[in-house]
């Protein structure tokens, strides 16, 4: 019984982390229609920056600001400087993001070295929650709460605010929106910034669970891709659903079908994509 409960909890907390990791990715795809394959590299840089700030100052808030801010600004620069030039050409966009991720990952290796780095949660989130029937880390509970908050926040931003209306209008028809007098470029800066910020902060959040090592970027990218593609590209609720599917199936497979772990992430995704290319929550393409 307790193994069942802990499987559910683990699945949910992993799902929460996946959702947080995929947030920036799905935002950029949802608004910009950009399949950002450099997402993992942005995550990696966020993770390293945050770890450096934490080991230097111990200030987690500062780490969030630095990781999110630097990665966000870098994303804006990259977005405006590079992607604006190939926007609309899917193939070139994809290749450009791959190229950027190669550069970023190798630069990270050059700058930060290849030693593994461990990041601890802030003091008040360390250790296990003793009020639970099973041992469960406080940090993972925090992740679940945070994922709910971020999910709700993004939903509110997009569906209920004027910025959100602008973003939705931009998705509907960006040329039309510009013809009405809206500075779409500035809107893009905002989206780049937000997507980069989320990726950078995800680096901090994820590294507390996974640690940081070269190569994490590719694995994070694959996880984000699976989650987002399962759910339906660009759909926030899809990303949430995709996270839940991957998180729970991974958690249960670990316990009940461990020999399938290598296939548990990509197998279902493949089957789903074949049956329903638009993902669980995606609109018909």
């Amino acid at each position, binding site marked *: 019984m307790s193994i069942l409960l802990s499987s559910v909890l683990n699945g949910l907390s992993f799902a929460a982390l996946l959702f947080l990791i995929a947030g920036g990715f799905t935002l950029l795809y949802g608004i910009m229609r950009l399949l950002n394959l450099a997402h993992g590299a942005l995550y990696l840089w966020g993770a390293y920056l945050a770890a450096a700030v934490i080991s230097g100052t111990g200030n987690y808030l500062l780490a969030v600001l630095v990781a999110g801010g630097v990665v966000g600004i870098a994303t804006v620069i990259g977005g405006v400087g590079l992607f604006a030039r190939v926007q609309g050409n899917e193939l070139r966009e994809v290749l450009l993001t791959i190229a950027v991720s190669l550069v970023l990952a190798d630069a990270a290796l050059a700058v930060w070295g290849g030693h593994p780095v461990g990041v601890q949660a802030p003091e008040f989130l360390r250790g296990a929650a003793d009020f639970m029937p099973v041992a469960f880390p406080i940090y993972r509970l925090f992740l679940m709460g945070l994922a709910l908050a971020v999910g709700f926040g993004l939903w509110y931003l997009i569906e209920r605010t004027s910025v959100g209306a602008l973003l939705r209008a931009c998705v509907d028809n960006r040329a039309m929106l510009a013809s009405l007098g809206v*500075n779409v470029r500035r809107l893009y800066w905002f989206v780049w910034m937000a997507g980069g910020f989320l990726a950078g902060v995800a680096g901090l959040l994820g590294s507390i669970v996974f640690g940081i090592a070269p190569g994490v970027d590719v694995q994070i990218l694959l996880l984000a891709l699976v989650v987002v593609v399962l759910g339906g590209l660009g759909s926030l609720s899809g990303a949430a659903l995709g996270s839940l599917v991957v998180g729970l199936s991974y958690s249960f497979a670990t316990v009940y079908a461990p020999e399938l772990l290598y296939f548990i992430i990509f197998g279902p995704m493949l089957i789903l994509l074949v049956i329903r290319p638009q993902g669980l929550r995606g609109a018909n393409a």
Partner: protein
Amino acid sequence: MRLSVTSLAAQYGQGAALHDVSLEVAEGEVIGLIGRNGMGKTSTLRAVMRWPEPTVTAGRITVDGTDLTRGAAHRPARIGLGYVPQGRMIFGSLTVEENLSVLTRAFGRATVRAGLTRVWDLFPKLADIRNRRASVLSGGEQQMLAIGRALVGQPRILLLDEPSEGLAPSIVDELTGAIRNLANDGVGILLAEQNLTLAVSLTDRLLVLEQGRVVLARDSSGVDINDPTLRSHLGV
């Protein structure tokens, strides 16, 4: 305020769309741009509105001497041009009101509030369905919304691309009335239209586009809609 287009040439990718288009629209004037499909009406309007395509390869677009040929895509609207595109292109995932209020960031709260009042006055029907998603509106309602949206920024010149397309005659009449009212209010109008009768009845002056060139220019008052040259240009 006067919009001047001089010897405009533009292309989609490698394919030329406009070769030599010149026209002028001033406040209070209604200019008709007529021609068959694919002759460059929509391309002209898009080029003026600085759409990503077609790309302008030659010529100048100015408003009162301000060059609009290059620069950011939102400048024409900020300077006072309103655009009602072919096919309406309303934002389907936004409500009716959001379709209008989305321009708050571009024009400021006060302007948009005034704009809203004006749109509700012009199209009372829209006021009743202001919280409905735009994607579920009827064709006529969508067209009203598209015109209303273009008016929010208080444009001095309005570019209309086939507003009557696909609409029932009664609704066309309603729209024609609205457009006439706008013209009477002093808004300059550039109307791209295939419907010759409608164009003649609305406009002061007609320009005929063929293969991306202006081939004929006449005052509407003198136009006989059965004129064989005109009809041959329009393919009717």
